[in-house]
Structure formats: C-alpha cells, structure tokens
C-alpha cells in the first residue's frame, strides 16, 4: 500500500476521511491486466491522469465511476483502440496497442448490444470468433459450447430480434468469449435489463470468473457492483480514487460512521417542534434538503448522538416519516468521492 498515492489533493475535503487507511492498487506480476500510470488527453481536457489498475485471473474487478469519469476511455486503452499518452497497459505482459496477441487475449463486451440482428445466435458467435482469429472450422463447435455455458443452447438458430433483452445481453457476452480470452472487459453489461435477466447475467459472470477469467466490469450500478465485485476501483475525473475490496474501502473511508437519513413531515410539526428537531439534526451533522424535510449525512456512532436521536424519533411522533440508519455502501462511497465537499 502506498499512502503517498492517496494524497489529500485527490480527495474531497471531508474532515473525517482517514486517507492512510485507503488501500492502494495492487499491480503485481501475477495480474492479467496491468495498467500503470496511464494518462490520456483530448486537446481540450485531460481524460485520464496517472491511472493504475490491475485484474487477476479468477477475479471480478468493478470499475466504478460517474458518467464522464473516463471509464470508456480507459476501456479503449485496454482494448487497444486508444494509445495512452503516458504510462503502460499490458495484458499478460503484452501491450494491446501494438501487439495482436494482447488484443486476442481480451474479450470486449460493449455497453450496447453490439451484435448483428439479421444473423442467428450461432452465426453471430461464429462471426465474432472469426474476426478474433478463430479458425472457421472450429467456430461452430466453440459457439455451441459457449451457448450451453450461457444457457442459450436451445436458441442457437434463433435470430436476435426474437430473443428477450436479457438473452441478447447474454449473446453479447458470448460473442466476446468465442476466441477464449483471458481477460473479459464488460462495459455496463446489464443496462436496461430486468431483474430476472440481471440475475442470470451475474451468474454467468461468476461462472466465467470461476473458470479463471480476469473480469473487468465498468458500471455505475451500485447494486451490481456490490453483488459482483471482488475488488472495486473508483474513478472520478480520470483519476483512481480508491482501489480494493468493497468492504475494505468503505471501512477505510467511513470507519464506524453510519449513514443516516430522516424524512420529516413539516406540516405535522409545530414551528417550535420543527426548529428544535432541526437544531438537533444539525448538531448530528446532517444536511437538510431545500424544504428542510429530508436530512441526511454520515454520522459517527461513537459520539452518543444516536441515543439522543432515538429519544425523538422512536416516540409517537407524526412529524417523522422515515428514519434510516445503515452502514455506508458503495453508493455513499461514490457520492462521497464525487459530490462537492460540505
């Protein structure tokens, strides 16, 4: 762990952050994907700055970040579509920007369902296999094996439009598996998918991980990240802000603090009651919405404020609509990295 990497200027100015606890990216020689100090700039702005990241065989790494954080550009450096202006990207020791074998080691699943809708499921897989260099004679056999793996063995001869959205997503993933990649890069793979299909997709990704693939998944879906990630990397404005196991990062950032959210029914409170209550919430460190009806924030449980809060909210009180206290999750973590400091 390199605490120097987590210098204060990279992080929002939250006074309760314990930056020395933040885990640093682990880029060892066993990593399938190694990204070291990568930078990339468009003429008008920097997109990536000194990004370091890795993915190991048998591991799902979730790259978490808001829109415009640089996730897609980072993915393009991995797939060899973009050459970084600084730093190195290697896959199994080879650079994808210049080495065909490195590019062949990557299976790329784009965010959109990027398959040919006039072809059947099997034809799609065969085409993408051939494009990635699989011998034509082997493609059908491989396609059928992958279709069984992703549960679409019986739909091999169906055209794409007759499949459900979830099945199309599975074909999208299957197409990236045809050439036997060692690293699978998935860009928002479950966007627009219903919950049932989402579960199936996650099962497939776990299966692939268990087969020894290194998987890098970009998303801004916290539920998905929490469900799948062995490790997360948080990228904000082109910089990796944190990298490690989700619980480890949350613990490092928030310690024993709790996420508190209280919703008030202002109309049901007298003016005096409301002012007293708001004063207490302010002391607790919560921040109000514009109408002062919703208060939320991260609260240190060791200060004894919770017991004072409990006295107010757990007695019959029509002025309190909702009280939620929970351990901070990835959403809170990402908000913490992306929102302006208080």
């Amino acid at each position: 762990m390199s605490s120097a990497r987590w210098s204060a200027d990279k992080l929002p100015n939250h006074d309760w952050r314990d930056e020395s606890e933040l885990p640093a990216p682990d880029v060892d020689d066993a990593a399938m994907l190694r990204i070291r100090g990568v930078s990339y700039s468009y003429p008008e702005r920097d997109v990536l700055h000194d990004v370091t990241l890795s993915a190991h065989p048998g591991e799902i790494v979730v790259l978490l970040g808001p829109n415009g954080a640089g996730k897609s550009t980072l993915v393009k450096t991995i797939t060899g579509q973009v050459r970084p202006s600084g730093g190195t990207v290697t896959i199994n020791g080879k650079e994808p920007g210049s080495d065909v074998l490195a590019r062949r080691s990557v299976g790329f699943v784009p965010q959109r369902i990027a398959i040919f809708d006039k072809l059947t499921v099997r034809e799609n897989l065969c085409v993408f296999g051939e494009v990635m260099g699989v011998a034509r004679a082997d493609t059908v056999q491989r396609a059928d094996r992958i279709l069984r793996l992703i549960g679409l063995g019986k739909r091999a001869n169906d055209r794409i439009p007759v499949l459900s959205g979830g099945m199309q997503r599975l074909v999208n993933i299957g197409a990236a598996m045809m050439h036997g990649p060692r690293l699978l890069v998935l860009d928002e793979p479950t966007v627009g998918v219903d919950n049932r299909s989402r579960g199936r997709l996650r099962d497939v990704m776990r299966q692939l991980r268990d087969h020894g693939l290194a998987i890098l998944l970009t998303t801004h879906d916290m539920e998905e990240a929490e469900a799948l990630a062995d490790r997360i990397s948080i990228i904000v404005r082109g910089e990796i802000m944190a990298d490690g196991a989700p619980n480890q990062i949350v613990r490092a950032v928030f310690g024993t603090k709790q996420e508190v959210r209280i919703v008030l029914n202002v109309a049901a409170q007298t003016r005096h009651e409301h002012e007293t209550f708001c004063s207490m919430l302010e002391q607790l460190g919560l921040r109000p919405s514009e109408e002062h009806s919703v208060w939320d924030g991260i609260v240190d449980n060791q200060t004894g404020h919770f017991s004072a809060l409990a006295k107010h909210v757990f007695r019959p009180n029509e002025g309190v609509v909702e009280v939620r206290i929970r351990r901070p999750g990835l959403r809170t973590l990402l908000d913490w990295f992306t929102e302006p400091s208080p």
Partner: protein
Amino acid sequence: MRYALFKVMLLSLVRDRGALAMGFILPGVVFVIFAVIFSGAAGGDLTVKLAVADERGTALSQRFLDNLSKEAGIMVLQTTNMTAAGVRSFVKGGSADVGLVILNNGTAFNDIGRTRVPPILVVTDPSREISVSVLQGALQQVYFATFPGAVLKGTAKILDQRFMRFDARQVIALERGLEAMNTPTADSEPVELNFDKFYERIDLVGASTVPTSIAYYAGAVAMLFLLFSAANGAMTLLEEKESGVFDRLATGPGGTGVILDGKFAFLVLQGFCQVLVIYLVAWIGFGVNLPGHLPMWAVTTLAAAFAAAGIALLFVSLCRTKHQAQVLGNILILVISALGGSMVPRFLMPPFVQDLGWLTPNTWALEAYASIFWRGEGLSEMIVPLLALVGTGAAGLVLARFTIRRFA
C-alpha cells in the same frame, strides 16, 4: 476474418427484402424506362462537335466550311489534313458527334440539283441522331448563305419553264445579276430544290447491331445504381458504429482495416451482380450482345464496382451519422451521375460539363463500355479507363482506412 465480414454482409442482404428489391429489381425497371425514353432522339439546344475533311480543297469548299464553322450549334474540330478515314475514326471514337466529308468526286458543289451524286458525305453515330438533325439544319442555312445565286437561278428556271417565259432582255439581266452575285453559272437544265441530294449519309455500325443508345443506357443506369447500392452498403459502417458493433470488431487483431476490407470485397461483388442483372435485361430484352463481349464486360464491371465501393467507403467514413450519409450521399451520387452521363448523354452536354465528367467514375465506365459494345476494342485500348476506375477504388479504400480511425 475477411470472409466472416463478407458473410455478414451477404446474409444481411439476402434477408433484407427492401435491399434486394432496391439492388436487383429496381435497377432493371429503371433501365427499361430510361431505354424506352431515350432510345429516340432528344431535342433542345446543343453544340455539335463536327469532324471535317475537305478532300476537294478549293476556295469554294473552304468558304463553305468557314461559314459552317460560324454557325451556332456547330463546333468544327480544328484538325489539319483530316481525311475521310480520320473523320470516321473521330465519330466512332466519340471525339466527334458527327462527321462531314467534302468529296472530291467532280460533282458541282454549288448546284445541288444538277447531279445525282452528292458532293458531301455525312458520317453519323446512330446513338447521336440529334446531332445529325442539328447538322442538317446548319448545312441548309450555310448552303443558302454561301451560294445564294444557285438558289435564285434554280427558282428563275422553274418560273421560266412552268409559269412564265422570260424574254431575251430579262434573261440577260438575270444572268448579269447572277454573275454579279459571284456565283458560278450552271447549265440550262432545270434544278430541283431537294436538299437531300446535297449530301449522302452514312451510319457507322458498332460492334453490335443493337442501337448504341441501349448499350449506353445499360452502362449509365448500371453506374447510377452501383453508386447507390455501394453507398447503402457502406452505410452499415455507421449503423455498426451506432450499435457498438464497430467498436467490437475494431478490437479484433485486424483492427479497422479488416472491417473495411470485408465490406469492400462484398460491395464489389454486390455491384458486379447488380450490373450483371442490368446487362442481362439489356441482352434478353434489347439484344445487347453481352455473351459476345463477356470477358471484357466482366473486367470493366469489376473495375466499375471497385471504384464505386472505394468512393462509397471513403464517403461514409467521412460522415458522422447515417442520416447525414443518406442525405449527402443522395445528392453526391445524383450530381456525379448527372455530370458523368448516367442521366443525359454526355454529347448533349456543354463542353465544360463534358470535361468535368472525367472527374467521375461514371464517365470512365461509360467510356469503357462504349469501347466494348460500340467500338469493339480490346483490352489495350481500355487500359486508361480501367486504370482510372481501379485507381479511384484503390485510392478510396486507402483513404477510408485512414479516415475510419476516427470512428474508434
């Protein structure tokens, strides 16, 4: 890898009825319509390029040609020592729309009623019938302007013989007047003012007996639809870019080059088949001798499809969206086709527009098809147009390989 992309294009086409109809039925229908409409002569103002040979070489014949060159609508090609054979060659080669030979056959040049042997030979390309009509009108006008006495003399004789008798004094006065007009005298035989006897017409026969306008429009329509179908096929690049398929394919070991190569190969084959359909209709329905020229036709068609595919891929790689490509593509293709002779025969166009046509693949392809079906030339005479077409296609593909990188 290339085969895979090729197969995708093929299956996509076969399963798209609209594209099939657009690619293989509509061209034949449109060709038939064009052929029926344009196989007759078209009217309008135009400048006829005239190749001239003066075998007689007299002051009189020279004066006639000088007056002819001043006629509106006639552009006499400036060549020295042109012979009758040269005139035929110019007309057959398409450099001249029509030819004129002043024969040195002893016939009185300024007395059209006196002899049965015309002093002038008009050499025509039957596909440019309208230029013959223009020349015909110009010849009458120039004849009367050059030899006014001949007409007056003939008229006087008809009056003298059929309607009234001139007395001796009137005859002397008439002859003096005619001499004063500096016209040669003629004998006393009555004249006929039938202008048809002034010239003989000879139609050059091409490599095929079929009207050359039919063969012309087969090539013209073929090029128009080659460009349209190539542009439509190339637009799958933009569809694939929008769907993310392009990004996915571009991550393959072959990169973007393989994508373009696969599409290029498909577009060339699709274009070849499309032109084949048009020429089959031309052969079966109109008698264009396709079987007799199959090898050269195949080479030319491949070269034309090559050019269309290269242009289409380059054009689409420069566009940002499919909608943009569709709109701009339609305009570009229509302009190229209009300039290149796919809509109106090039000889009807003003000379500067004809020159602009050499910037289009349509003109080069039409030139090559004319070499085959009209002039019956071999490969050696077709090298220039074929190189122009292949070079255009290759340049388009190479440039598209660079411009497509911005899709990544």
